[in-house]
C-alpha cells in the first residue's frame, strides 16, 4: 500500500504466535492525573514476578526515580514526510528505547507511561513506522486507566475520548468509590465509544499481572480467534421474535412510538433450525443496510429478503398484515424494541406470542463525537478495491479513525485476512482458513470521531467482488 497506508509487520514477521516472538513487548499505560497510574506502576514494579521491567515515564511522573529502570521522557513528535504529513512518531521514545535495547541483558517488558494529555496516535505509530522499533519491540496493549468517579465529567474533552478510543484495555479504577448503577453507566458510556476494548472495573488497579502484561492485543494471530464474535452485540435491529405461524393473514399493530417509521424483516419458515436463524440474522444485517421498501396501507408483509418500512402515525400508530402461505416457524426482526411501539401480533383477534425472542443492544447511530461503528458484509471482497478504499479512507479520514480491526473474506483466498489500523497504518496478515460450511463474510469495527455508518457500509459494499 502507499506511504499513508503501509502494510507493516507481516512483511518482516510472517505469522508468529507471541510466545515465539523474540521482540520485547511494550505496554502503553495512559490516563489522567489522579486515575491511579502511579499506584498501578509501583505495584507492577514491586510485585514478585521475576520479570525485568523498564518504565519510561513522562516528565511529571511520581514514581521513584531512584529505580534503576525508570527513564524520563517527554513528548517529542516527529513528523514523517514520506508522502503523508499526518504520520507522526515519538522521537523521544525511539531514542530511549533504542538505547535500552542495545544492552546485554534485555528487558522482559517495557512500560511507557503517558499523561492523559498526550496524543496516543504517535505512540502507537512509533512501533509500526520506525524500522528499529518494529524489529526489536512489539506493542502489546494500550491500557487506559480512568477514575470511575470523574470519567463522565471528562468525557467532553477530546483528549479523554482519544485515550478511551485507543485503548485495548480500560481499567475503571476506584470502583469502590462509586455506586453500582454509576459504575454500570460509566461502563456503558465507555463501551459505546470503544466496542473493542476489554473493560475491567478495579480498585487500586488490582488485576492479575497476566491480564495487563503480555496480552497480545496487537497480535493479529492471537486476536483472530476472537474476531468472529466481536460484532455480535452490534446489530442494526434491536429485536428478533420467533413465531409459529399457520397459513393465512396475521395482523401486526403498532402504537405511536419514538420514530415515525419502523423497519421490519420477516424470514422463514423453518426457523427451528439454529443454523437457519443465524443465516437469517446475517441476511437481515445486510438487508438493514440496504434500501427499505415503503409499505403501502393495503399491502402485506411477505416472508423473504425484503426490508419493509412501515410509517407509524404519531396519533393512530400503524397496522399491517403478515401474509403466510406455508406453516412453520418464522422470524420477525424489528428495528426497535416491540415495547416502544406496543407491538402486537394477532389472528382473528387472538394474540399470538413469540415462541422465542432475542433482544439486541441498540446500535450506535451516526455520532458527532467519538464512537464505534461495526460493519458486516456477506460475500467476498475484491482485494484491489478494498485496498483502494482503505487507502482513500485513511487519506481522507485518517486522523479521525483511531483504531480499526477486521476480518475479511477476500475473493480467491482460502484464508481469512485479518487486519488492524493504528492511525494511518494498515497492518494485515492471513488468518485461519475458511471451512466449507463457514459463512464467508467480512467484519470491520471502526473506532473514531464523526464516523458515518452509512458511508462506511456503502464503501465496503462497493468493494464486493
Amino acid at each position, binding site marked *: 500500500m502507499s506511504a499513508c497506508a503501509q502494510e507493516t509487520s507481516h512483511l518482516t514477521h510472517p505469522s508468529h504466535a507471541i510466545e515465539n516472538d523474540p521482540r520485547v513487548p511494550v505496554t502503553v499505560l495512559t490516563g489522567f492525573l489522579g486515575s491511579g497510574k502511579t499506584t498501578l506502576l509501583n505495584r507492577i514494579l514491586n510485585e514478585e514476578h521475576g520479570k525485568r521491567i523498564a518504565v519510561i515515564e513522562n516528565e511529571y511522573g511520581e514514581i521513584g526515580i531512584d529505580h*534503576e529502570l525508570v*527513564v*524520563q521522557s517527554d513528548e*517529542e*513528535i*516527529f*513528523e*514523517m*514526510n*514520506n508522502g503523508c*504529513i499526518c504520520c507522526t*512518531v515519538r*522521537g*523521544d521514545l*525511539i*531514542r530511549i528505547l533504542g*538505547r535500552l535495547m*542495545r*544492552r*546485554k*541483558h534485555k528487558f522482559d517488558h517495557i512500560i511507557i507511561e503517558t499523561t492523559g494529555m498526550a496524543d496516543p496516535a504517535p505512540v502507537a505509530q512509533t512501533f509500526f513506522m*520506525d*524500522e*528499529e522499533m518494529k*524489529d526489536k519491540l512489539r506493542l502489546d496493549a494500550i491500557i487506559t486507566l480512568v477514575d470511575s468517579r470523574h470519567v463522565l465529567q471528562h468525557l467532553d474533552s477530546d483528549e479523554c475520548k482519544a485515550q478511551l478510543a485507543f485503548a485495548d484495555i480500560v481499567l475503571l479504577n476506584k470502583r469502590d468509590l462509586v455506586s453500582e448503577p454509576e459504575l454500570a453507566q460509566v461502563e456503558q458510556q465507555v463501551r459505546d465509544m470503544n466496542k473493542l476494548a476489554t473493560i475491567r472495573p478495579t480498585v487500586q488497579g488490582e488485576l492479575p499481572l497476566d491480564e495487563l502484561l503480555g496480552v497480545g492485543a496487537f497480535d493479529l494471530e492471537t486476536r483472530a480467534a476472537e474476531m468472529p464474535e466481536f460484532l455480535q452485540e452490534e446489530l442494526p435491529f434491536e429485536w428478533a421474535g420467533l413465531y409459529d405461524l399457520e397459513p393465512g393473514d396475521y395482523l401486526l399493530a403498532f402504537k405511536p412510538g419514538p420514530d415515525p417509521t419502523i423497519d421490519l424483516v420477516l424470514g422463514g419458515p423453518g426457523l427451528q433450525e439454529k443454523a437457519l436463524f443465524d443465516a437469517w440474522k446475517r441476511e437481515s444485517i445486510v438487508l438493514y443496510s440496504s434500501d427499505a421498501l415503503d409499505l403501502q396501507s393495503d399491502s402485506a408483509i411477505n416472508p423473504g429478503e425484503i426490508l419493509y418500512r412501515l410509517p407509524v402515525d404519531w396519533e393512530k400508530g400503524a397496522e399491517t398484515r403478515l401474509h403466510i402461505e406455508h406453516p412453520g416457524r418464522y422470524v420477525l426482526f424489528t428495528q426497535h424494541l416491540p415495547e416502544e411501539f406496543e407491538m402486537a401480533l394477532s389472528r382473528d383477534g387472538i394474540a399470538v406470542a413469540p415462541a422465542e425472542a432475542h433482544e439486541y443492544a441498540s446500535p450506535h447511530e451516526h455520532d458527532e463525537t467519538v464512537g464505534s461503528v461495526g460493519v458486516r458484509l456477506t460475500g467476498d471482497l475484491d482485494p484491489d478495491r478494498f485496498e483502494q478504499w482503505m487507502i482513500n479512507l485513511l487519506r481522507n479520514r485518517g486522523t479521525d479513525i483511531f483504531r480499526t480491526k477486521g476480518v475479511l473474506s477476500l475473493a480467491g483466498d482460502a484464508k481469512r485476512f485479518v487486519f488492524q489500523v493504528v492511525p494511518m497504518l494498515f497492518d494485515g496478515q492471513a488468518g485461519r482458513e475458511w471451512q466449507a460450511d463457514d459463512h464467508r463474510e467480512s467484519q470491520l469495527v471502526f473506532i473514531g470521531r464523526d464516523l458515518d455508518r452509512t458511508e462506511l457500509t456503502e464503501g465496503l459494499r462497493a468493494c464486493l467482488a
Partner: protein
Amino acid sequence: MPGLATMPGNAALTQRWSEVLHDALADLAWSSDGSSLFAGSADGSIARFDAGGESQANWQAHGAGVTRLAIKPGDDSILASAGEDGHVTLWRSHNGERQALLAEEGSWVELLAWTPDGRVLAAAASKTLSVWRGEESLGFWYDVQRRILAMDWAADSRRLATASNKGLYLWRLDEEGSDHGEPMQLLSFPGAPVSVAWEPRGRALAVGTQDGFLQVWRQAAGSKGPHAVGKASQLTMRGYPGKVTCLAWHPFTPLIATAGGPDMVLWKLQHTGKGAKGQRLRAHKKTVVRLAWSPDGQQLASGDRSGLLCLWSRAGELLHSQPMNNEISVLSWCPDCTALAVGDTGGQLKVFDNNAFDHSPHHQPEPGGAR
C-alpha cells in the same frame, strides 16, 4: 561469507585479541599513538587496554551506562566521558583518576565531542548544550523547544552544527573562545534529523533524517567563510528504507558513506551544482548501524544489527566480512590504521589487525589531506 574471514594469510582482518565485558560496548576510543584502547560499557565502567589486549585499568566511571568516550586531541592523558547518569567527566586516562566532574545533568548525556584542536569540549543532554574550555565552563544553553539530536564540530574547531527537530543550528566560538549566546539557524526543514556530519574541510554538511532522507548542503563555489553556508546548494537523496543514522565522510575526498536500514550507499559529490553519484554497497541484510572510514581513507568498515562486520575498499569492493555474536554497537579505527576495534551489544570487544593496510610510504595520509 564467514568463511572468507578465517582463510589464513588471505583475510583482510585477523583477530589480534578479544575480551568480553559485563555489558554492551557503548563506545571506544584510541589514544593517538594507538598504544591504549578505552572501552566504555553500558554498566558504567571504562576499561583501558594496551595494544596487546592486556587490561591496564578499569574503573566505574558512571552510575549508569557510559554513552560516549572522547580522548582529548593532542593530549592523550585526558579522556572525557558522558553517561546516562547525567555526568560529564574528565579522567586521567592512564589510571582513571577523576580530574573533573564537569556536569551533572538530570537526563542522559548522549552527545560529547572535542573540537579537532582539543581546546573545547561540547556535550548535549536533552535540551541543554554545554561547552567547556579545559575545565572552565564557557556556558550552557537550554531551549525548551530544541532537543539536540545530533551534533558535529567543523574542522576549523569554531563551528558546531547541532540538529534538532525541524532545524539545523550553527554555533560559533568567537576569538576568545566564548560563544555569542544564540545559535544561528542554518536552515529549517520539515523533517526530524537523526545524524549530522561536517565534510572534513567544513565546506559541506550532511544530515540524515528519521523518514529516510539524506540532505547535503554545500557552500556555493568560490564563497568563503563560515557564514557562506547559508547560500549553500542543497542535495536531497531519498529512498532509504529506514532512518539515515550512519554518515561517514571520507577523510580527503568529497565522498560520503551513508546507511539507512540495510541500504548502504556511497555518494560521490560532483562539482557544485552537479549533484551526486550513488553506489550501493551490498552485503548487509539487516540494518547497518555503524560506519567508519580508516583514517587514511583506504578502507571503510561497516557493522549491522545481526552482527555482520564488513570491510570495504575505497572503491566499494567488499574485502572481508565476518560475524560478531550480537548487534555491532561501535567501530573504531586505530589512528595509525593498523587495527580496527569492534564492540557489540553482548559486551564482546575484538581488535583486528588490518592486513589490507599498505605500509609503503606513498599510502600514508594523502598530500594536503586533512588540512
